[in-house]
């Protein structure tokens, strides 16, 4: 018997004596509806509020994004070439933007701009996927990540987001900037992933 057959045989032997096996329970999505769930009047408003609660940054104009970049001295970054035409007009000459990501120069990129696949309002979560993210590293390695979002992409809650999982091999739910509390329980933002997480609404 090979390892697979041996393992499955042990599983079968372990379960054989059970007089009956536990059934899969039915459960209603109401069970996981949060008490504070607002009626889904304006999903962007709820999303923005929840994003801010996890220290993310909701923005609604390219001008606001440029102001953020200039304020922090983030002058060199990456942008998905599909998105760049809609943004380039608002970027000043002083900010250098590449539309290919060179992983041998990871430290060069202060920011990365890529497309979101969706969002979850209830938790302030951005949804990324391989299909819509031009480079995994471009959305992850720079200090600032900007996920560009359309209003119609926002889902109300976790249950809806699970039901809407696309057939993509790499879906990532991003809920705020990366963080750790490993050192004495003190929260520090910006670990391996971005230290600043922006959701830019551009319909």
């Amino acid at each position, binding site marked *: 018997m090979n*390892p697979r057959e*041996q*393992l*499955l045989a042990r*599983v*079968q*032997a*372990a*379960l054989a004596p*059970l007089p009956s*096996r*536990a059934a*899969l*329970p039915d459960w209603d999505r109401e*069970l*996981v*509806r949060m*008490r*504070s769930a607002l009626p889904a009047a304006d999903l962007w408003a709820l999303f923005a509020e929840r994003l801010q609660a*996890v220290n993310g940054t909701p923005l609604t104009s390219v001008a606001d994004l440029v102001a953020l970049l200039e304020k922090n001295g983030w002058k060199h970054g990456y942008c998905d070439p599909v998105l760049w035409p809609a943004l380039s007009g608002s970027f000043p000459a002083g900010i250098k933007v590449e539309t290919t990501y060179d*992983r041998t120069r990871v430290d060069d990129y202060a920011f990365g701009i890529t497309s979101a696949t969706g969002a979850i309002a*209830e*938790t302030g*979560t951005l949804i990324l996927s*391989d*299909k819509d993210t*031009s*480079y*995994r590293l471009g959305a*992850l*390695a720079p200090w600032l990540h900007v996920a560009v979002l359309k209003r119609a992409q926002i889902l109300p809650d*976790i*249950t809806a*987001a*699970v*039901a809407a*999982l696309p*057939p*993509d*091999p*790499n*879906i*990532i*739910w991003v*809920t*705020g*900037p*990366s*963080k*750790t*509390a*490993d*050192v*004495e*329980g003190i929260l*520090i933002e*910006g*670990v*391996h*992933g971005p230290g600043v997480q922006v959701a830019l609404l551009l319909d």
Partner: protein
Amino acid sequence: MSLQPLDQFARNLAPDTRAAVYDGSKKGHEKRTRVLFDAYTDPNRLREIAGEIKQHVIEHLDTYLPAVEAKLQANGVKVHWAGTADEACAAVRDIMQARGLRKIVKSKTMVSEEIELEHYLDKHGIETLETDLGEFIVQIDHDHPSHIVKPIIHKNRREIARSFEREGLGAYNDDPETITRRARQFLRHKYLAADVALTGANFVSVESGRLVIVTNEGNSRFCLAATKCHIALVGIEKLVPRDRDLGLLLNLLGRSATAQQLTVYTEFISGPKAATQPDGPEEMHVIFVDNGRTDVLASDCREILRCIRCGACLNVCPVYRQASGHAYRSVYPGPVGAVLSPLLAGKKFPELADLPKASSLCGACNEVCPVNIPIPDLLLRLRAKGKAEGAPLASAGTPPMGAWSVLASQPAAWKAALFGGKILNFLPTKLLPIPALRAWENKRTLPAWKGGEFRSWLKNRDIKK
């Protein structure tokens, strides 16, 4: 002199360490309580349903394991099976050696600690680098994690700063932000130079074949963005029947572990990278690991396999808070460890037979468990197993019960003992050769013996009537 190793460990624990563990656990528990119970109208029902889902899975692993294998293969994932720790380590080695690969970056997986993967691969010339900040610090210190979610809960910033200086990561600086930035800078270049991403999985959906990995740091994302080959080590009990059940469990996991609605990153991985994606693994392997789990499945404590490794039981456990994780001498500490570790040890159960005794059976662990594991009942079953097998560690320090049970089933003898016990009020009890009595009096006074007084009162009163 206490005869129980965990009790001795607790006694000898440095006050600093105990304070760090106590404060960290207490904070984790209090935040979880607020976030879980404030959020839902019926959080207890949520836990019960989650428990039933996981119980259903483990009792149907004979059909779910082949089903998830088929789904993973259809998604382009290579599936491997490992019965023992050695087989699991060898499977990793074989994948790498067949491709001439030498460097692994890994995100947190407790299974890799169980099978002692790093040590094995080191002997075969394969380098493994931990990327979770806490695990990275454990690695450079040649230490062991002491909590399943917060591995360095027992360390303070000064110790970490000294370790960083020793490893050439900069002059001594114990500011947590500086420590974190240094790790960020150091590790990102390591990711990019590595060949293989080694991860675990929090859940695997049988319906879609998706692996779910949750982190806050983004280290698993980086492992999977920078390298060309992904190997996932997954305990056979990690399955979940349907994607929608993932939704329920994800509502519970973050809240129970770290009082977050969701961790910062929740990754759903169902295969190697998409064809149009420049970054990421071109091939993906899942190694399903047994390593004693089928023994647990066959036992009368199989409910422990529901565990989703949130750590809430550790945070609330008064014994864990006093003793700290290392007192449990095994990969899994705390209440879950007191059940799982002795069982996973298989034939070596006697070496860990004291762990189920290290509990006052208060039940706080079951109260906070997101999958409603009846831990106190399982501890009791393991105590019975320890006694039945005559494991010395199981009986160390425990008063023998044989004579007691005879006395307590013979009313005449019992009554005689009640009245006769009065002598304890006159004897210096410290001189009595009864270890349990001495252990008691070491820490506490004994109340006055009043044996027989209630019964006399009752009898005289009835006579008067």
